[in-house]
């Protein structure tokens, strides 16, 4: 067995890829050279072209795993095994997606994921807004201590507590249910913290004016503070959506059958299926990927805000 001789055993296919890649890099370098020494007009065009080329090559590399997954999901199992590999589906088989949806249980998994994710997002927003508001506008005993306690929960990751939490869930009779999947994530220190910061940005005079107008805390919060903090709320909501949808460890241990498994866990079982079903696995990956990709396309700006503030990904 040649287990340790990986670099020495590069196949012709791999060599080809390396050759093409180096050719492109050389071309880009050449264009850069022209860009520096040619006529002004040629120079500008050449640099521009080389930049596009570089961006394009990197895009291809970054996107390739996703691209080849989509292609393979549209091929028949024996076409996937074909050598040299097919890099484009000539006769796309869309029926694979139907198979993945029904026999692959992707429909069920995705529905579970959406139920769980929606509940977590709504729950997180409600508790974070309420807690954030309390920390920003209310005076109550031990405020500072409670705030520190909130923050400290951020330092105890699920990876540390997962098995004790599992015992709790089991003893409460929640094992293998939506409750188990949702409840532990209904409140987060990070959300409360983010919302507090957002509400601190609301001018104090507004609160004073509202008080004079006889607005209670609840009405001030829902009518004035929340609309003003909308960007932060959107960022937190998207962030919570991504984190909840992508969870792996917790859903893995608290579910035991397809009735409650989320799509991430479903993928694990799908990936263990037979070779003659490998196209279904690829279709399952695509189905699991699409929801977040669409969200990314629509809400790129808000999402980036949320990620740069939190930067935790499941």
């Amino acid at each position, binding site marked *: 067995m040649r287990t340790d001789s990986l670099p020495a055993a590069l196949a012709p296919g791999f060599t080809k890829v390396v050759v093409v890649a180096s050719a492109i890099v050389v071309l880009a370098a050449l264009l850069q050279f022209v860009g520096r020494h040619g006529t002004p007009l040629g120079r500008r065009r050449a640099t521009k072209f080389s930049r596009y080329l570089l961006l394009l090559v*990197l895009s291809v590399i970054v996107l390739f795993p996703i691209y080849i997954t989509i292609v393979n999901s549209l091929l028949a199992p024996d076409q996937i095994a074909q050598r040299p590999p097919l890099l484009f589906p000539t006769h796309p088989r869309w029926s694979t997606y139907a198979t993945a949806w029904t026999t692959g249980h992707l429909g069920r998994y995705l529905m579970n994921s959406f139920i769980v994710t929606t509940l977590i997002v709504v729950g997180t927003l409600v508790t974070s807004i309420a807690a954030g508001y309390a920390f920003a506008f209310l005076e109550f005993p031990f405020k500072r201590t409670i705030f520190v306690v909130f923050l400290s929960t951020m330092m105890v990751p699920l990876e540390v507590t997962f098995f004790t939490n599992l015992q709790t869930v089991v003893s409460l009779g929640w094992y293998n249910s939506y409750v188990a999947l949702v409840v532990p994530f209904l409140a987060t220190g990070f959300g409360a913290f983010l919302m507090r910061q957002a509400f601190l940005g609301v001018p104090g005079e507004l609160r004073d004016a509202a008080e004079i107008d006889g607005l209670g805390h609840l009405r001030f919060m829902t009518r004035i503070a929340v609309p003003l903090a909308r960007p932060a709320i959107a960022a937190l909501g998207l962030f919570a959506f991504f984190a909840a949808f992508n969870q792996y460890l917790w859903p893995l241990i608290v579910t035991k059958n397809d009735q409650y498994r989320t799509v991430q866990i479903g993928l*694990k079982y799908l990936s263990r299926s037979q070779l003659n079903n490998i196209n279904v696995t690829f279709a399952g990956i695509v189905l699991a990927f699409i929801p977040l990709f669409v969200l990314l396309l629509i809400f790129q700006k808000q999402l980036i805000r949320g990620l740069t503030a939190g930067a935790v990904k499941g």
Partner: protein
Amino acid sequence: MLIFAVFVFYPFARNIYLSMYSTPPFPNLPSQFVGLSQYGQVLVSHNFLNSLWVTALFVVYTVPAGLVLGLLLALLAHQKLRGIRAFRTVFASPVATSVAVASVIFFTLLNPQVGLFTYWLGQQDQLSVLDNPTWALVAVSVVTIWQNVGLAFILMSAGLQAVPDELLEACEIDGAKRWARLRHVILPLLSPTIFFAVVVGTILSLQSFGQIDLLTQGGPLQRTNLLVYNIYDQVFNQNNAGRAAVMAIALFWITLVLALIQIRLLERRVTYAN
């Protein structure tokens, strides 16, 4: 309003209580009390030290590489070119992949019989890279780097956007070379972002679990037995919650130091964004 706060606070109190509860080596188990002596045993055991070493290696493999790639992509995408927004979306797109999506993609592409990458690596019908003691951790790292490169790109882009354009234009007028501009102007200004990304990336790497469960199950020869996977393995396969608890506490202390740094940075960044 106070009721609200109490409602929120309650699950937290529970959570903390629970996490503290795991501190004694035997939570809820009808086992003998051996006190701290178990700590000594576990912390010097080969199994734990191996995990620690592998986890450290994994962090070293994934964090700097992810960071450099993210920075490179961010620098390239920070140009005034037509259609640059499309490239930005492409570079950010791995952010939409979960651990499971990324791992299963590579798991299938590395399949010993039909995997495309297996074929390109010339390993067809041989031992899978993921079962190879020398290469398994590297393979898992590559998957992780790819999955996280979108996040690194987004963080770095946000950092770059904060660098004032006038400053860069001034450099151009001064005729500063591209490399000098990067080293002496951009990198120093980006250093808070880079620091933040290092801390976040390290925490993420330390807590990695999904890719191990999906790709290697800690094998071959425990070469990919990262700390969190080891804890999981102790609980669910070895039935040793006591050992797991000790390791969880160790993980907690390691993460704590990093999390403290993160929160300090977070406070600064968020206040400033609002």
